[in-house]
C-alpha cells in the first residue's frame, strides 16, 4: 500500500476545529487486513481526546478495510454514536463509516476527511 493519509477532524468541544492528520506510515497499526486507528482518552491512542471525561481510556477504533472505513465501539462506558436525523444511533460492534459522516465519541463529535 502507498502511504495513505486521512484527517480526523474534531467537530465539537474545546478542540473544535482541530484537524489531526493520520498517515499509514506513522499512525495506528497496519497489517494485511487493513489499517486501524484508536480513539480514547489515554495518550497512547492515535486520536487522544484528553479533554472529554465521557471518553473511555480506549473508546473506539476506526478501521480501513478493502477500501472502506468502519467504526467499532470498544465497549465504552458512554458509547459511540452515529449522527442521525432524529436521534443519534448508538454503535454496537462494528459499523460502516462514510468519509464526512459525523460520529460522536463520549461527548466529542468527530468526522473523517480525506
Amino acid at each position, binding site marked *: 500500500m502507498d502511504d495513505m493519509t486521512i484527517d480526523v*477532524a474534531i*467537530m*465539537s*468541544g*474545546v*478542540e*473544535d*476545529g*482541530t484537524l489531526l492528520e493520520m498517515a499509514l506510515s506513522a499512525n495506528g497499526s497496519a497489517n494485511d487486513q487493513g489499517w486501524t486507528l484508536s480513539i480514547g482518552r489515554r495518550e497512547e491512542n492515535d486520536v487522544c481526546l*484528553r*479533554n*472529554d*471525561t*465521557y471518553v473511555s481510556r480506549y473508546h473506539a477504533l476506526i478501521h480501513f478495510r478493502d477500501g472502506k472505513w468502519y467504526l467499532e465501539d470498544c465497549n465504552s462506558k458512554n458509547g459511540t454514536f452515529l449522527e442521525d*436525523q*432524529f436521534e443519534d444511533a448508538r454503535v454496537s460492534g462494528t459499523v460502516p463509516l462514510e468519509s464526512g459522516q*459525523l460520529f460522536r465519541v463520549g*461527548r466529542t*463529535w468527530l468526522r473523517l476527511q480525506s
Partner: protein
Amino acid sequence: MAKVTLGDILINARQESIRMRHYYLGVEHLFISLLEIQGGLTASLLESYGFTPRYIVDAIRRVAGKGNRQRLWAGMPNTPRADIVLGIANDLALDDGRSEITERDILTAILDEGAGIPVRVLRRLAIEPEGLIDRARSSSSQPITGMTPSYLRIEFGSGFDVSTEIPEDHLFVMRRMFQTSARIRIERRLLGGHSSAALYVVTPYGVEGGMQSPLVVKIDHADSILEEAARYEAHVRSTLPPLTARLEDKPTTVETSDLAGLRYTFVVDADGKSRDLREAAGSLSNLGEWIQKSIYPYFGKTWWNQRYPYRFPVWTEYDWLLPPLLVLDYLPEHDAPPDAVVVRDPVKIHQVRDLDYGAPVVIEDFTVIRVYRDLNSIQLTIGKGTEASRRAHKILVRGINLSEFAFFRGEIVERMVGRVYETRAALLMQALSALIPDFDGADDTIPGSEHLVRLPNPLRRYESLLEEFCNGSLSKIHGDMHLGNILVGANNTPFLIDFAQTRDGHTLFDWAMLELSLLNETVMPAMSGEWDSVRFLIGYLALINQGQEIPGTAPEIRRALMPIQAVRAVAERCLARPSAWGEYYIALAMAAMRAYGWETISLGARRLMFYVAALAFHELREKKPDDGAETRTTGGASGSFDAP
C-alpha cells in the same frame, strides 16, 4: 435595532459557555449569543424560516451536550474554530472599511466557515447556510419581523361564537401566518382536547378578493408545534390516505410570545361547513357504523392494520398517562443528605410511593423533557426506550433558578437533588377527592352496580398493573383520538387532525381513547352526574364487556351505547389474539386513570372515568393470566416484584 458590539456578544457567549459547563468559547456559544439579541438579525432571519430562537438554542445545546462536572483547564480558551470564525468576521469588517465587528459579520462568518455545530443544526432543520448568508447580506438593519401586518383584516364567520374571545397573541400568530392574504375570516373555533392548543377554522381571501380553501389553524406553545411538524414529517406524511387533512407549509412562529401556529388543509362539506365529531355525532344517522366503516378502514390500512406482535411491560406504554411520580423542590447538590433515596432507571416504584413530604431524593440519569421558564421548573423522565416509555416516570422539579443554570430539552441530567413536595399516590388521591366521592378512596374496593356489588379501587391496583406484561400489538397510532380530533367533511368523509402524539405504540390505545371520548361527549351529557347514575351506567358497560345485548327495556341507553359497541367491534379486530380482551382493558384502565383528573371535562364525566377504570380492573382480575395481561413470574427489568 440597538447597536450590539462584539464585546457584548462575547460576554453573552461566555455566559452561555458557563451555563453549559463548557468553559471554552466555541462557535456554538457565539451563535447562541447572536440568537439572544432581542430583535437581532439572526433571530429575525430564523423566525422568517419558522423557528423560534429558543428552539434553535435548545437544538444546538442538545448537539453540544453539557460539559464535564470538573474544570480541566484554567481560563476560557477559544476553540480553534472560534478563532477562525472571529478571524473571518474581522476580515469582513475590514473589507467594509469598518473598525467594529457587527452581529452581521459574526453571523456571516459562522455560516461561511460552514462546519461548526450551529451550521450543522441549521442543515438538519433544512435551512441552507448559503441562502441564509444571502439573506443576511441583503437584509437591512431593520429587523425583518418588525413589520407586523396589522392591515390584515380579520372577520368572523356567522357561525362564530362571539362570546369566546380569541386571545390577542393568537390573532398575532394568525396575522403573521396569513400575511400574504388580504383578509381572513375566522369561521369557528374547534373545541380542543385536554391540551393547551387552540384550533380555528379560517378562510383566507387573496388580494384579488378570491376566497381560498378553508384551513384548520392550530396554535400552541412553539415547542409543541415544532415537534408536531417534525412528527408529521416522520410518521404521518407518507401514511395518510390521499384525501385528508394535511399539514400546509412550515410552522409560523412569532417573537412576541412563546406561541406558534400550524395550518392543516381542510375539506368542508357541501354546505361549506366543517364539523368535528362532537357536533356531527348527533346528525350522523349511525355514528357507530360510521366509526366502523369510515374511520377504521380509511386510516386502518396504513395505521392500525399494519401491526406487529408486541409484548411489553405495561408501564412502558402507559406510565406517562399518570401524574408525576414525584414533585420535588430543588436542592443545591452539596446539600444532599446521606440518607437520600436514589431514583434511577430501572425505577422502583415501591421505593418512592410512600415518601413523606420533605424527604430527600437524588435522581440520576433522567432526561429533561420540558422546561417551564415562567415557573422555574423542569420536568424529567427516564428518557429511554420506546416513544411512550421515554415519557415514563415523570418527575417535576420546582424552584430552579433557570437564569443561572441552563437546562434544555433532551438533556440527560446525571444527578439532581430535591425534597419531596408531592407523590403520585397523593396527587391521584387529591384528584379523587375533587370528585367528592361517596365512598372511602383508601379502601381496596368501591361500591359497584346492581350485579357487581363491589369493584376494585383503581388507586389500589394501578401500581401492580404497571409492572405486568401485556401481549398486544404495535402499530402507528394517532395517540390522541378523541372526538375533537376527528373531523367530518364532504360526503361524511372522515379526517383526522392533530398529529402531536402520533407514534408507534400499542394499537388499542387509540380505540380505548375513542371509547372514553364517546362516553364523555355523547353518553354522559344525557345522564345526571350523581355517583348513583354513574354506577347505573357502569352496570350496562359491564354487559357490553360480557358481550351481552343491552336489554330493550332501556332503549335510550341502548342507543347511546351503540357507538361504544362499534368501537369494541373495531378493537376486537385489532386484538393481538382472538378474544384476548385483557390488552384492551389495560389500555382502557390506564387511559381512564388519566381522564378522571381532567378538569376540562364535567364532574359527572370524571366520576364515570374513575368507574370505567374500576370496571376495567375488575375485568382484568377476572381474566386468565395469558389473556392479554400476564402476571409476572420472574423479576424482570424493573425488579420491583411485590409479594401478593
